[in-house]
Structure formats: C-alpha cells, structure tokens
C-alpha cells in the first residue's frame, strides 16, 4: 500500500484526529464531576480550616465526600452580596450541588476597578454561634496570594484565618500558609471598620494593645505587606455588610452609594 499518497495522508490524519478527539471527549466527560468535586473540596477545606472546624491535614485525610458533607452540615447560609452590602442571591448549600464563588481574581479586579461585584459570604454554625467566612485575594512578592478570614458572631473578631499562595519564597513568604503560629496570631484580633487601614500586618511588631494589627513575618516584608493590603482591600469591600453586623443597610443608604459610584465610573472611562 502506498502510504505517501495525498489521499491516504489526509484520510489517515483525519481518522487519527477524530479518534483521539473522541477518546479525550469521553475521558473529560467521565472525569469532570470528580475533578469539580476536588476543586470544591479544596476551597471548602480552606474555609473549614479558617473557621477552625478542622486542621488542613484533617481535611485532606477526610476525602472529598466527607469535606463536602461537613460543609453542608455546618453551614447556616451562603449568599452573594453586592458592593452596597445587599444580598443579591443565595448560594446553594445542598451537598450534591454546592455552589461557591471562587473566581477571586476576577472579583479582586472588580473591587479595585469599582465595578459590580458579587462577593460571597459563608455563615457557618459552630457551637451554636455564627461564624462568618469571607475570602481575600491580592498580590504577594512573586505571585497571587489568597485566603479566607473567619469572624465570630460580631463580624469583627477573628476566630481564624487560612492563606494560600502561588509562589512565595519557601521559608519566608510561604509561612503565610505553612506556619500555623502566623495564622494563630489572627485569633482574638478584630477588624476596626472605622479605621484606615481596617486591619494591618505590621513590620517589626504590632503594638500589643492595638486590636486590628498583627506582627509581620520576619524577613518576609513584601509578602506581609501584600497580605496586609489584600485583607484591607477586601474587608473594605465587605465593610457595608460586615460593619452592620450582617443586617443589610436600608435602601436609603443605597442611594448615595449609587451616586458615589457614578464619578468612579467616569474616572474609569477617563
């Protein structure tokens, strides 16, 4: 058989490509649910760690199904809010179709660009009390950093936090994830929504009596700075919701908020 003819080459290539495409399509379809569950479980286990339900190690040894179950069992409500702190829509918490907002990067751009945002709020019940978990996202020294902050019932006091990063320096910036004592610093501290910054990570040690600040990681100035800015930016975005302790502000207060949004838009166009 002549394997070098034009017709043969075209037909041969077509068959190979179609065959490969079919195999890949099948594999992708068959594995998709499992992969989605993995991604969800990862995000949820970060939230559960922040809210101090389990440690990260416990979560990863539990397996996906258990993590999703734990989420469903402990969550009270999950919903998205807009920039004015009003609830836009509910997020499903049913164990079979858990809905999360995990496109933090896009939301971060929206916050900074003062565009429409859809910010997730997850309220868990722990020992009969509400624990509110919100995300944050920002730039570290070498790449993005993100995490989840857990507040107690007053929406101010931290009960915990969890952070992750793409490529911070091992042993320095990477401590935001690896060093439990850094995360433990958050516990008991509180955000101050009337102050600016709302919360900060202070190089060289925060004053002991200051409630809304913690010590930076020694030698990781830039990562600490980035994390400080990320937390401050995101808490500012959540301020209308969190500073009112979860009760959505009345419609009247939404009106001036809209007018303040208008010049910001024109600034963007400029």
């Amino acid at each position, binding site marked *: 058989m002549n394997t070098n003819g034009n017709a043969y080459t075209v037909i041969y290539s077509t068959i190979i490509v179609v065959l490969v495409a079919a195999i890949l399509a099948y594999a992708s379809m068959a594995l998709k649910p499992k992969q989605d569950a993995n991604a969800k479980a990862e995000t949820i286990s970060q939230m559960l760690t922040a809210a101090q339900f389990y440690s990260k190690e416990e979560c990863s040894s539990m397996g996906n199904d258990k993590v999703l179950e734990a989420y469903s069992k402990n969550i009270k409500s999950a919903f998205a809010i807009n920039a004015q702190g009003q609830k836009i829509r509910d997020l499903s918490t049913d164990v079979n179709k858990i809905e999360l907002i995990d496109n933090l990067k896009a939301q971060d751009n929206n916050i900074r660009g003062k565009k429409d945002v859809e910010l997730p709020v997850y309220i868990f019940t722990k020992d009969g009390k509400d624990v509110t978990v919100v995300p944050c996202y920002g730039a570290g*020294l*070498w790449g993005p950093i993100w995490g989840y902050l857990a507040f107690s019932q007053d929406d101010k006091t931290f009960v915990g936090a969890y952070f992750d990063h793409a490529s911070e*320096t091992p*042993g*320095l910036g990477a401590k935001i994830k690896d060093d439990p004592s850094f995360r433990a610093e958050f516990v008991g501290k509180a955000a101050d929504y009337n102050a600016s910054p709302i919360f900060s990570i202070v190089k*060289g*040690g925060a004053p002991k009596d200051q409630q809304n600040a913690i010590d930076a990681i*020694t*030698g990781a*100035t*830039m990562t600490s700075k980035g994390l400080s800015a990320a937390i401050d930016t995101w808490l500012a975005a959540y301020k209308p919701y969190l500073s009112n302790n979860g009760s959505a502000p009345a419609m009247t207060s939404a009106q001036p908020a809209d007018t303040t949004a208008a010049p910001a838009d024109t600034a963007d166009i400029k």
Partner: protein
Amino acid sequence: MEENNTKQPGLFEKGGKLGWLHSTVDAFDTFLRVPGTVTKTGSHVRDSIDLKRILIIVVIALVPCALFGMWNVGHEHNVVMGTDWGFWRQFGFGFLKVLPLYLVSYIVGLAIEFMFAQICGEEVSEGYLVSGMLIPLIVPVDVPLWMLAIAVAFAVIFGKEVFGGTGMNFLNPALLARAFLFFSYPSKMSGSMCWIALKHGEALPDAVSGATPLSFLGECKDAVTPLTDHFSYMDMFLGTIPGSVGETSVIAILIGAVILLWTGIGSWKIMLSSVIGALFVGWLGNVSGATAVPAWTQLIMGGFLFGTVFMATDPVTSAQTETGKWIFGFLVGALCVTVRLFNPGYAEGMMLSILLMNTFAPLIDYCVTSAAISRRAKKAKLA
C-alpha cells in the same frame, strides 16, 4: 624548620617513602618561605611577588575591616541593649563573637582544600587564605556556626574544586558562601534581627530595631527622612551601624583600598568604574523619582564599598582585559544599585551583582579581545 626539611629530601617527594603526603608537606613547607625550586623549562624570569605574597597583602588589607568589625559588634550590642561597656569590653565581646567564625571558616575550608589536593595529588593552593579571611566579614555575626561550615564547604567544593581549584574558578568563593547562606537560610540572613550579636539567652528588646540602612531604602521614595531619622551620614561613614561584620566602616575599607592600590594588587579601574556605575544609576533613580536618597549615599550603605574594593577586584573572577575591567566594574556598580532600588525582595544587591558579573566576565573579555583583533585587522588592511 629549614634544616628539617632539607635533611631528608627524598622522604616526602614523589616516589619517596611518604610520597603520598607530598601535597600536605609541601603546603606547610612553602607557607612562610620562598621555595628554592628553580624553573626547569621555559623562561627563567621570576618575580619575588608570587601568589602567596599577593594573598598575604590582601589579607593585611582586610585587617582594618576585621578589627573595626569586631569593635562594632560590641558597639551595636550596646546600642540595642542601651548599655555602655567602654572600648575594650566592646572589642573583646566582638572578638569572641567573630573568632569562632574565623576558626570555622579556615578549618573547614582548608580541610577541604587539603583533601582535594591530596586526592588529586596536586600542590595545596593558598587561594583559600583570602576567601577564608573574607567570609566571616560578609556574614551576619550571629550566623550559626554549622550553617557557616556547610556554606564554606559548598563554596569551596562547588565554587572552586570542581572547576580545578584556585585560579580556575569563575565565581568568587567567598560570595558564593554568602549566597548559599542567603538562599538556604533566608530567615537567618535577612530582616532586622540577624545583624545584632546577642549573648546566650538574651532577646532583642521590643520596639528596638537592628535594621540596616538598606532596609529603610524602600521607604525613601519621596524623602530621605525615613533613612536619616535612623542613621546619620557620619554614622554610615564611620561604620557605627548594623550590618555584616566587615562591611560597615567606610574608613576601614578605604585603608584596605589604599593598601591594595599602592601595592598594585587591586585594579583601580574596576574600583573607579564600579563607583561611577553606582553613582550613575543612583542619579537616574533621583532624576526619575524612584528614590529620594542621594546617589552618593549608595556608596556608603551596605556592602557596596566592601564588595567593590575586595571582591569585584578579585583577579581570578573579574575581567582580565583592561577595557573589560572598565565595563565589568561599571556593570557591577550599576547592577548593585539597580537591585537596591527596584527589587523589593532583596535589600542588598552587591552580592548578586558581583556574582552575575563574574559569570559574564569571560564574555566581556571575549568581546573586548575580538573587537581589538578586528580593529587591528582593519588597520592592517588600510596600511
């Protein structure tokens, strides 16, 4: 000693009874006296300045830095603790802190040199004398000794021996040791805590900062005050500031520089062009508004001057051609200040800029040489 060594000449020579020890014996034999060997082939012109003499002079040039560094270790300890011990106790404290660094540096470094020379059956080269003197001067005084030992071993094996020993290395071994420490144990090598020597069990008092001038550089975008609030220019010039042991005092380094220049061992071209390079980028930073710190301040902060005088001029790892030295030095200075101004991750750029230029030195020489060849070829054609 002389007598002993000449009595039984055959004993330690190649083929002799203890011939396998010949490297080791030879190293001690020639340490303090010029060997009586006569050149057997080729040209017979010999200068009394041999490698050992050069190295001894560099070591002497480093002594002021080392002595000042020892005193400053005690002085900074006093500043942070709010006490005053007086000169001799400060010096004694620093001496006892720095001495172990020297012991570790020389014992580990020379042991490896001897081992490799013994294995390869070559003469032990004295190159490590200077590296061993430099290493304790460019590390934080509080660096744990075992870390220093590993760094020295790494630098000697991978910086020198794998390339064929002294004279064949393309990276400065002392800087390689520092780079190893810097990347291996960053928390011990950066931040504001590591530059102050503490007694066992002591902790830095709260709200006292042992930060170096360079760590304030990032805050000086609009005004110099964040820097000058902490350190006066005089402090930086005298060297009574926190930093690596030998790098702080401009005066001590200048004494060393004079010795090197007077004896003709250090290249004035590299030193001068490095200073020009640093001033140039510092000036660009001022003009572009990247920093408010005057360009000349860059010269007296951190390890710039120490690196320029003692490390960029290393005859083995710097450029060899005369034009190449100008280019090499300029880029060292320029890169150093560039890293300081524009990379928030690394406060000090001198180590990285010298190491980077070390790798480029052969390329610079190649370009200079081939440019000269083509220029002459053109001339020859015209004539």
